């Protein structure tokens, strides 16, 4: 089967560079999948789970906001942060989750819109990390 080159780039490093069968990404307008020879596309990405399949192997990543570009049978994700499931520090994500929940309460109490939005984004990032990390401990059957 034809494959597509997947690259996930963050400001710190090249996280993934691999020929894959299928990429599923959390688009702003909903989750979408990209197969080989996809038409040129630019799509915005929100905080969420990104997964890709190579043969029978499925890999999971937690990504935060960014966008992706498809052209010439190559898909490039530009995200401010991206971590493979096995790289995720569960302890830290749990702490971040609690902190974010506390902040949301505080922001609600003071009716601070900006703080609330920021705390909600932080909570979302933490939740996504936790969910993605689950896949390592309990690998899903595809």
């Amino acid at each position, binding site marked *: 089967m034809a494959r597509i080159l997947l690259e996930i780039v963050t400001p*710190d490093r090249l996280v993934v560079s691999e020929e894959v069968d299928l990429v599923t990404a959390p688009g702003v307008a909903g989750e979408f999948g990209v197969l080989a020879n996809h038409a040129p596309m630019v799509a915005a990405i929100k905080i969420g789970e990104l997964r890709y399949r190579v043969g029978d192997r499925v890999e999971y990543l937690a990504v935060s906001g960014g966008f992706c570009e498809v052209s010439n049978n190559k898909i490039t994700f530009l995200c401010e942060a991206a971590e493979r499931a096995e790289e995720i520090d569960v302890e830290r994500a749990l702490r971040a989750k609690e902190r974010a929940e506390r902040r949301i309460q505080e922001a609600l109490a003071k009716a601070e819109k900006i703080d609330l939005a920021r705390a909600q984004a932080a909570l979302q990032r933490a939740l996504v990390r936790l969910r993605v990390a689950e896949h390592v401990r309990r690998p899903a059957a595809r």
Partner: protein
Amino acid sequence: MPNLRDIKRKIEAVKKIGQITKAMNMVAAAKLRGAQDRVEKFRPYATKFKEVIHELVGSGAVNTSQFELMRERPEVKKVEIILITADRGLCGAFNANLINTCERFIREQRAKGRDVSLICVGKKGAQYYRKFDIVRESYEEIMSRVEMFNARAVAREAMRAFIDGEVDETYLIYGYFVNVVRQVPKTEKLLPISVEKEEGVEETEKKISGSYIYEPEPEELFEQILPLYVNTRVFAGMLETAVSEQAARMTAMDNANRACGDMVQSLTLLFNKTRQASITKELMDIVGGAEALRKG
């Protein structure tokens, strides 16, 4: 006549300073390699980002004037400068050069009758401007390891002020890394974002792209990407400054080390001369004494 023991003590002291500067030189060299490595890793991200933004603007898919972050204000009354300096000194004129550039820029803007406010990134700039009442925000102790979330915080504050109408233009001043022996302060306009049309880039872009599918609609997509682009610009400025700082420190410490060597040499010369002089003097005393005994 200088005291022999004093000179000796001075030589020892200078030698010790030489050891310190040498160590600092080597530390800076190691850190420079690390920082350069990070710039290398950041480059693909930055390049791709620019490409996509150029593509979106160049293809006419979006109308730039409808975005708050790109809209030029008809009248510019307030200007903000994000001044990126190092947290630490002992790197030659590096921080002073950045501050001088900033000072000059402030004078120019004030001559045009504009108000100036400042966001300081890095301790040295903040320390200098502490006595003036123009610093709006300052971020310190974040330059030893440049992190995206710090850059994001700076960018977020700058964008907030811009969108709320507190400032009409925002500039970035940072240490641009030319090479290991040359770093120059650079001033760039950050907001409103202007996408300068580089012919070369667009030519190649057109060939591979054709027409893109945009998801969501180009306008909405652009709205999402623009703030990320500002983050990237601030991050890039911080990375450049961090690399330049280490390079400047390396050179400064190398010079200091050489100066130490020169000083040890001239002090040793003085030491030997003094020693010689005192021996001659003693000899003369002895000869004089012997002469006196013989006569008497």
